[in-house]
């Protein structure tokens, strides 16, 4: 498995899906840890 190269549109899809997955992963982790974030107010 490697970065898509040479196929038209492949990089676009990689960016779309990759960024979407990263954003969803961050959101999921944030929801799981949200109570921590709420309790620890930045000074």
């Amino acid at each position, binding site marked *: *498995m*490697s*970065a898509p*190269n*040479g196929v038209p*549109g*492949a*990089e*676009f*899809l*990689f*960016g*779309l*899906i*990759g*960024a*979407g997955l*990263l*954003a*969803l*992963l*961050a*959101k999921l*982790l*944030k929801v*799981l*840890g949200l*109570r*921590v*974030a*709420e*309790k*620890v*107010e*930045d*000074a």
Partner: protein
Amino acid sequence: MSELHPAFLLWSAAALAACLRGRAGAVLAVAAPLAALALLPQAGASAGAWTAAGFVLEPMRADALSRLFAAAFCLAAALGALYAFSEERPLERAAGLAMAGAAAGICFAGDWVSLFLFWEALTMASLALIWGAGPRSRGAGLRYLLVHAAGGGALLSGLLLLRAADSPLAVSSLVSAGAPAGPAAWLILAGVALNAAVPPLHAWLTDAYPRCSPAGSVLQSAFTTKAAVYVLLRVFPGADILVALGSVMAVYGVVYAVMESDARRLLSYHIISQVGYMVAGAGLGTELGVSGASAHAFSHILYKALLFMGAGALVHCVGTAQLADLGGLYGRLRPVFWLYMAGALAISGAPGFNGFISKPLIGLAAEQAGWKFAATLLHLASAGTFLSVALKLPYLAFFGPERGKVSRPPTTGMLLAMGAAAALCLGTGLYPAWLYARLPFPVDYHPYAFGRVWGTLELLAGTGLAFWLLRRGMKGERGLSLDFDWFYRVPLASAVSAASGALQAAGAGAAYATAKAISSGAALLRERRPPSFPPVGESIMWLAAAFALAVLLSRASGL
């Protein structure tokens, strides 16, 4: 020694800058790094050695790798000083110059004793820069000191083991058959990895850098992690574990950056992500990997300084970098926005900027060396970088509903420094031959081939569409996501508090005074109301560990 060592020039300037007030100090802080930069081409292969206490010291040994890193450090120091030109902070000026001197000293150190002394000097100067920001940074500085004392201890232990084994103390590769050669090398690697902010040894960075003054963050972003990258390239090229760690940390930093709501913490996580590329390049150990990591470190120092200048300008003008408290600032801070975007496009690897000519070298080196899964992770981190630094942060701070009051404009020094940094990002991006000619090994890479430009634009467009579709879920939320600092801010602080309580109960006099001091230390260590269970960072770390294992297994199985 027949030559003037750049470190001594910078340290002399630091001592003078600490005493000078007004414009003289500001001019000195800009001029001294530029003078040190002018010295670098004359730095010879070796300027001789001294013998002291039975050690052969060689504090000035230069080659292309050391010159390139030292040049980037001098440029960063000059840009940081220009950014803070109108600020009357002599201690910060001195600390910035001292950091630049120590980082340059690390680059030129030919023996481990000299390197260790410069290494510790860098930690002390960095600590002064953190504490120089005022009472708000006391706790972060204490935690920084605690963590770096452990890292320095690991490095020193490794050096003592080397000495005990009668190994030569010249700084050279400690890698054998793709792994650190023996316990001494592993200890040294642990100490260096901590300064490179390799997870799980990274939380000091995102804790301390956002607590510095705006100019302090700019300076911090340049030195500690990149000096560690230099040592990894010099001492651990070809250590397989660095490929796994580096490619995973590239994604780890990005995931956290997508979650973060403080602009300077977000950018701090991106230091971890970008340093991941360089750590992976060191681990590859091939000529392209080492040159790619060197080129990317040079690019990174420039664009990261520019990005922190942009976030610092928000702190200066609006009083906060919390994205939940910012919005709609474009009309009032237009120059800051556009200059920030130059840095954001550079870190995203957009054509025309320096990230475009340096970042792909490492991915290509990984593919050529058969590390295909690692190359995929690095590519994925590119998309996440554009998502968080070039889309999320500017969208929330500069557009949307108006939040935050601009109480004062950016200073002329700020705008000049941002303009100079943007020009350097653009200049090296448009003329890659200049940078490629200064790398440790020759590079035969043509970034502006049509397919590469088109592929990059496709990647950025796909990421942009993903952001547009998911933008409502990326709103800034006030609060702090603790990371691995939870371990020393909660269990360790509780243990110290308990010890202090026991001491206070035991007696009076000196024991009581000691107990009170320890109690204050514990309060600083914790600083905030603690959460009752491990933070979200732990779950990310388990994922990161699984990915690191997958990188190593995919390499072993040839996938």
